[in-house]
């Protein structure tokens, strides 16, 4: 199996990432949010193939645990900056399902009047500084929000999500250095899914251990099993409490996997099916479901009911967006300036 080198780092940290089951309500909420993201991405995929979504969409099915585990530790006033694979981040941070779907479909009730699309989802109410079409582009935005939060002194934090591809953007290092010297309340969250587009990250990424990149700035850095929402939640809890306490930035390298192609339509000829299958065995939603059932906290019926409910919610969002108007000619020039 490729994408294995990072598995190793993962294992090294297994002890640190000892799982702590959260209160049942919270555990159910984690499960539900992951289900919601999965259902959302499935709908987006079929809308894309049905010709209802123009342009490019990048789906995060398989990676839900990272967004959900991290955002479960954030409050509304905390900020996130997301990337091109960002629907999960948006939903985990509280986005309205209907407005999100509308934006992706290019409809006027969307977060950006349907002018931005999947790569440009902003949600001021929930502190989302945007998905982003520039690899690495969101990273310093989060650091800036953390800078502002530090000035404001209300204990807010900021998180940036980025892929393994962004590990090679110089911007990341500049941002980490500043976060470290100014002890800014920011958490750098790398979703290491083993690929940047069609290129395996091991071909373009030096160093056995990506954590070392954060550690070189004396930033507390840990490897996290990104397929385990509880492990992510724990690591995020530690990092975020450090940040709130004024102890500065952290770096989490979450090993994860995208089930689908780089974008909807990519046939993934560069992956072998055994690899995909192996990762599907680690599915974060199944896993949490099993854990909860194992502890007798929920039944499979409840899980199915939750799933049914989010699927309905997403379907309704699709109906809403389908029925919504497209932007009008006069929208072309709106909001050029504040």
């Amino acid at each position, binding site marked *: 199996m490729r994408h294995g080198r990072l598995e190793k780092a993962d294992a090294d940290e297994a002890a640190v990432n000892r799982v702590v089951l959260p209160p049942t309500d919270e555990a159910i909420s984690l499960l539900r949010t992951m289900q919601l993201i999965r259902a959302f991405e499935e709908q987006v995929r079929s809308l894309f193939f049905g010709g209802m979504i123009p342009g490019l969409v990048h789906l995060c099915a398989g990676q839900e645990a990272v967004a959900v585990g991290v955002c479960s530790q954030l409050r509304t006033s905390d900020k996130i900056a997301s990337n091109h694979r960002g629907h999960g981040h948006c939903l985990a941070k509280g986005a309205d399902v209907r407005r999100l779907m509308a934006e992706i479909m290019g409809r006027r009730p969307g977060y950006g009047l349907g*002018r931005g699309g999947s*790569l440009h989802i902003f949600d001021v109410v929930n502190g989302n500084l945007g998905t982003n079409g*520039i690899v690495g*582009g969101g990273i310093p935005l989060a650091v800036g929000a953390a800078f502002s939060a530090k000035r404001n002194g209300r204990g807010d934090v900021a998180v940036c999500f980025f892929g393994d591809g962004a590990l090679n953007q110089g911007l990341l290092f500049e941002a980490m250095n500043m976060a470290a010297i100014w002890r800014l309340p920011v958490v750098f969250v790398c979703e290491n899914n083993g690929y940047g587009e*069609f290129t395996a990250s091991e071909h*373009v990424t030096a160093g056995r251990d990506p954590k070392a990149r954060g550690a070189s700035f004396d930033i507390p850095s840990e490897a996290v099993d990104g397929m385990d929402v509880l492990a992510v939640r724990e690591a995020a809890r530690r990092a975020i409490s450090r940040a709130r306490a004024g102890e500065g930035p952290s770096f989490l390298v979450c090993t994860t996997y995208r089930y689908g192609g780089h974008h909807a339509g990519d046939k993934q000829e560069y992956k072998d099916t055994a690899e995909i299958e192996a990762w599907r065995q680690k599915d974060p939603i199944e896993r949490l479901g099993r854990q909860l059932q194992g502890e007798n906290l929920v039944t499979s019926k409840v899980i199915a009911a939750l799933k049914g409910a989010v699927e309905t919610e997403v379907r309704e969002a699709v109906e809403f967006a389908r029925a919504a108007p497209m932007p009008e000619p006069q929208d072309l020039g709106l909001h050029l300036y504040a």
Partner: protein
Amino acid sequence: MPVPRRCQNRRTSACTYMPNARNITFRSAVLEALAGEMRRDQSVILIGEDVGAAGGVFKQTDGLHAEFGEERVIDTPISEAGAFGLAIGAAMAGQRPVFEVMFGDFITLVMDQLVNQAAKVNYMSAGQFSVPLVLRTAVGIGANLGPQHSQSLHAWTAHIPGLKVVMPSTPADAKGLMTAAIRDDNPVVFFEDRMLYNVSGEVPQSEHVVPIGSAEVKRPGRDISIIATSRMVHIALAAAELLAHENVSVEVVDPRSLVPLDIDTLVASVKKTSRAVVVDGGYRQYGVTGEIAATIAEEAFDWLDAPIMRVGGANVPIPFSKSIEPLMLPDAAKLAAIVAQLLHGTR
């Protein structure tokens, strides 16, 4: 010598004879130039993101990795600035890199290396070092890619002394200009409109070089000159066709390169027609139409019967939604209407 096919140009300088021409796509034409030059010259290498086994996100480098191997077709990390700097250093040391920036919007990331290093090395070193390099990038509004994946910032590169800037409109020009760009000893920025990739045209099978700095009259006419770049040439030709039905004879001139700009061909056309519209696909404000219009006006002032009109991209971020993205650029009908207004003085 047989009569050139499809050659609509009366000025022989810009008219190319096309032996063994076949109908192929713009994409294939560029690929042919790349492969041809890589075969001819070992120092030509290709550097970019996913240009290797994947063959490019637009299949624009398909097959090169298989033929030339990973030593010459290099997949980089997502490190545009560093990788482009590397390409410049390699060029200074004797390689001839073709560097690809996946989306034209991302050339913002390599501007320091382009402007402060590549463009100036030959000058600053008094010719000790040159930078024989091509920066190619795919641009173009119309694929619903949104504000960060649709821009064409060719106006920026045209502003910087020391660079050459090329914008082909046809498959034949794409092959001929890419070949010339690779052979050029200077940094050449090569803008490819991705909406042209599937457009077909006659392209010579054998070596084909179009000199950088030669405009071409793509359609001769008498009443008005439309000076159009890259994809806008096709819109201009379509507008010319519409106007022909109204007995308006439009001349369409394609500068093909912005730097050097073949101002003589442009001015000759305007002196003949006395009217001009300049059309470009970049943002209109402080874009290239201003320079072109102002230069022509300086040289042909006494010949002009009307102000030179300029048509460009709307001055807003490029929206992704299907309903309004098309409003960013003129279509043939809109352009024809502008021309008609100009001719009838009803502006």
